[in-house]
């Protein structure tokens, strides 16, 4: 099909250069000299693009920035009557269209989770909606799994195209790229030249090979009931999660964690209302104004994280797991807590108890 193009590794920079004239292009780049970590940044020709390993931080900040201004305000005092004041408000700002280049299937699946909450529910979040609408994903077929990956365990997989606009398959020191919808199709002419039949055929084979091997040894899609059964088993949680330091890294690097906080940051007569990432691993997340905290212990907070992803969320959204199996929380956890094992053992332990 003519829609498939091939781009050699060596032409990648030129292509990104062309694309970045059309829109904001976010690419995975190294965190610095001699650093292993990777994060998504707006394309710049000096940055080294890393497609060979998963990014440390997911690209969720492209659509759901860590800090987002919801509105700005300015009070104005009446010159003649100081007791009176008026307020200027400025809300929703336009955002430019963006392309996330080199996302992985798990990253994109993160946004499918977000969509449930921010778009498909009773209320639509205009801030999220606007960015989501304007953001495209060029996703790479994932052939670089490591010991923390488990996307197939949660109903996705390394060849899962759902949610992507462009699909890239690594072949011959380059990529065969194909558009999956109209939005993606528009970019194809800017991206490169048509692929040869051999390249297309090779890509097909790579795709088949990669999809044939599921990633992750467990099936974690049916854990909601197991979780409820374990909920009050304090020993279970304490034994496995006492080592959690409640740092919240797991939620910040997670492509499916969407909790936020809203604060007014003001000075004198002006300020802004911002939304910033929050995390259920933080003590302050559930701290009530009275001083009471329903989840004072670290393991209780971790239990919520597991529960939300594998039980409450699927209960609320047609069985969808709000974990994409990217393994970031495992890799970046300073104390190596393994969410797969914890969810898997929910079940085993339930079985054993019966």
């Amino acid at each position, binding site marked *: 099909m003519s829609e498939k193009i091939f781009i050699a590794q060596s032409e990648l920079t030129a292509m990104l250069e062309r694309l970045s004239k059309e829109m904001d292009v976010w690419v995975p780049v190294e965190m610095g000299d001699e650093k292993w970590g990777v994060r998504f940044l707006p394309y710049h020709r000096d940055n080294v693009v890393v497609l060979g390993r998963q990014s440390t931080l997911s690209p969720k900040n492209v659509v759901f920035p860590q800090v987002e201004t919801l509105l700005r305000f300015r009070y104005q005092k009446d010159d003649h009557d100081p007791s009176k004041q008026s307020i200027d408000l400025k809300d929703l700002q336009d955002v430019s269209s963006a392309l996330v280049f080199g996302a992985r299937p798990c990253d994109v699946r993160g946004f499918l989770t977000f969509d449930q909450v921010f778009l498909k529910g009773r209320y639509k979040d205009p801030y999220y909606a606007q960015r989501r609408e304007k953001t495209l994903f060029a996703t790479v077929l994932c052939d670089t799994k490591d010991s923390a990956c488990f996307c197939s365990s949660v109903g996705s997989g390394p060849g899962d195209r759902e949610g992507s606009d462009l699909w890239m398959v690594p072949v011959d020191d380059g990529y065969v790229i194909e558009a999956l919808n109209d939005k993606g199709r528009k970019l194809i002419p800017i991206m490169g030249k048509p692929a040869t039949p051999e390249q297309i055929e090779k890509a097909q084979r790579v795709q088949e090979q990669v999809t044939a091997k599921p990633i992750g040894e467990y099936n974690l899609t049916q854990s909601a009931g197991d979780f409820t059964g374990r909920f009050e088993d304090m020993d279970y949680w304490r034994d496995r999660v006492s080592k959690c330091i409640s740092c919240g890294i797991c939620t910040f690097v997670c492509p499916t964690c969407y909790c936020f906080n809203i604060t007014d940051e003001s000075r004198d007569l002006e300020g*802004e209302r*911002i939304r910033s990432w929050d995390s259920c691993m933080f003590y302050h997340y559930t701290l009530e104004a009275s001083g009471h905290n329903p989840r004072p212990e670290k393991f209780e907070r971790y239990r919520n994280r597991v529960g939300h992803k594998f039980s409450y969320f699927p209960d609320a959204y047609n069985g969808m797991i709000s974990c994409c199996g990217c393994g970031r929380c495992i890799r970046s956890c300073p104390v190596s807590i393994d969410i797969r094992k914890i969810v898997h053992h929910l079940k085993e332990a339930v079985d054993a108890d019966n």
Partner: protein
Amino acid sequence: MVNSKEESTTKKDLLIVGFLCNWCSYGGADTAGVCRFHQPTDLRIIRIPCTGRMDPLFVIKALIYGADGVLVSGCHPKDCHYNEGNFYARRRLEVLKQFLPFMGIHADRFRYTWVSSSEGQLWQQVVTEFSETIHGLGSNPGVQGESDAKAMISFF
């Protein structure tokens, strides 16, 4: 010597934050005022109960957000109204002073001194000198963030 009188009237004011202890230096500054000693105008004074209350973070916050200089002044050591407040303070403040350059902040933008309430003359001298130093360094860009709210929320 530069004539500081003319200097300060011609030069654009910079922003110096002064943290002065209630019992000595605040009185010293007052004495200087009562005696009508001429002083530079770029100092904004914040009265604190004692330099022992002086959290080094006050200084850091001011400098990060773009204050051009920070001056802390209290009672002479052994003269603290609370006996020991400034003994603690001098350790903290000296450590802070030596630390600032490591982060890329000029150590001269921060100074701590001891001035008693009768030393109006000394106060005038300290402020004038410090102000000159700060004018020599020029304005402090602070730490440059790329926040879009930067222009709007300016803390100083």
